C-alpha cells in the first residue's frame, strides 16, 4: 500500500528556474528519504531527513519535513537539464526495513 505520495505527477521548468516537489504521508515516520531516478537507471538517494529535523540541504537541493502536517518537500534551485528525472519520496516507519514509496513525480527541465 502507498502511504507516501508525491503531490504532482509531472512538472516542467526551464533551466535556471527553481522547482519544488511535495510529498505527503499518512503514518508516523522516523525518516523521509528523497530519491532521484534518471531514465534507464535505478533510483539513487538524494537526501535523508530524520523526523526530528526540519530542513536538510545538499548542494542545490533542500528538503523540508513537517511532521505536524505529515508532509515533506524537495526544492531544487538553479535547475539544469541533467535534473530531468523522476523524484520519489520514501518513508521509514519505525525500525521497519521496508521503505514506503511514493509513486514519483516526473520533472522535465527544458533548455
Amino acid at each position, binding site marked *: *500500500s*502507498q502511504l507516501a505520495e508525491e503531490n504532482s505527477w509531472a512538472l516542467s521548468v526551464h533551466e535556471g528556474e527553481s522547482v519544488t516537489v511535495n510529498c505527503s504521508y499518512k503514518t508516523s515516520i*522516523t*525518516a523521509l*528519504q528523497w530519491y532521484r531516478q534518471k531514465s*534507464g*537507471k*535505478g*533510483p*539513487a*538517494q538524494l537526501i*535523508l531527513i*530524520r523526523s526530528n529535523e526540519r530542513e536538510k540541504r545538499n548542494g542545490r537541493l533542500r528538503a523540508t519535513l513537517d511532521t505536524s502536517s505529515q508532509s515533506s518537500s524537495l526544492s531544487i534551485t538553479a535547475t539544469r537539464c541533467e535534473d530531468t528525472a523522476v523524484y*520519489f519520496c*520514501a518513508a*521509514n516507519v519505525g*525500525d521497519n*526495513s*521496508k*521503505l514506503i*514509496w*511514493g*509513486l*514519483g513525480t516526473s520533472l522535465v527541465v527544458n533548455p
Partner: protein
Amino acid sequence: EAAVTQSPRNKVAVTGGKVTLSCNQTNNHNNMYWYRQDTGHGLRLIHYSYGAGSTEKGDIPDGYKASRPSQENFSLILELATPSQTSVYFCASGVQGHFYEQYFGPGTRLTVL
C-alpha cells in the same frame, strides 16, 4: 565500480517458462530487496531478505519466489512466467544504520510473451 549489479539486463521469456533474475552486491549490506516498477504504480516490493538464507514476502509476492544463498547474491524466480509479469525489475541493498538507505541496481527489463 557498480556496487549492485543485475543480470540479465534484458530478458524475453515465454508464458509458462521459468525465469531467474540475479542480483549481486558488493556493499556488504545485510538487507536486499526486489522491486518491480510499472507506470502508474511506482516501485512495488516483491521480496526482501535480512541476510543469507532469509527471504521475506513483500507487498506483491504472488507468482514470485526469492533465494538468498549468500550475503552477496539475491535471486528472483518466476516459476511460471505470465504476461502480467512483464515489467522492469530492480534489486537493491540496504543497511540498518542508515535508515535502510537503498542502493539500487540498473534494473532488468523482462518481457513475457
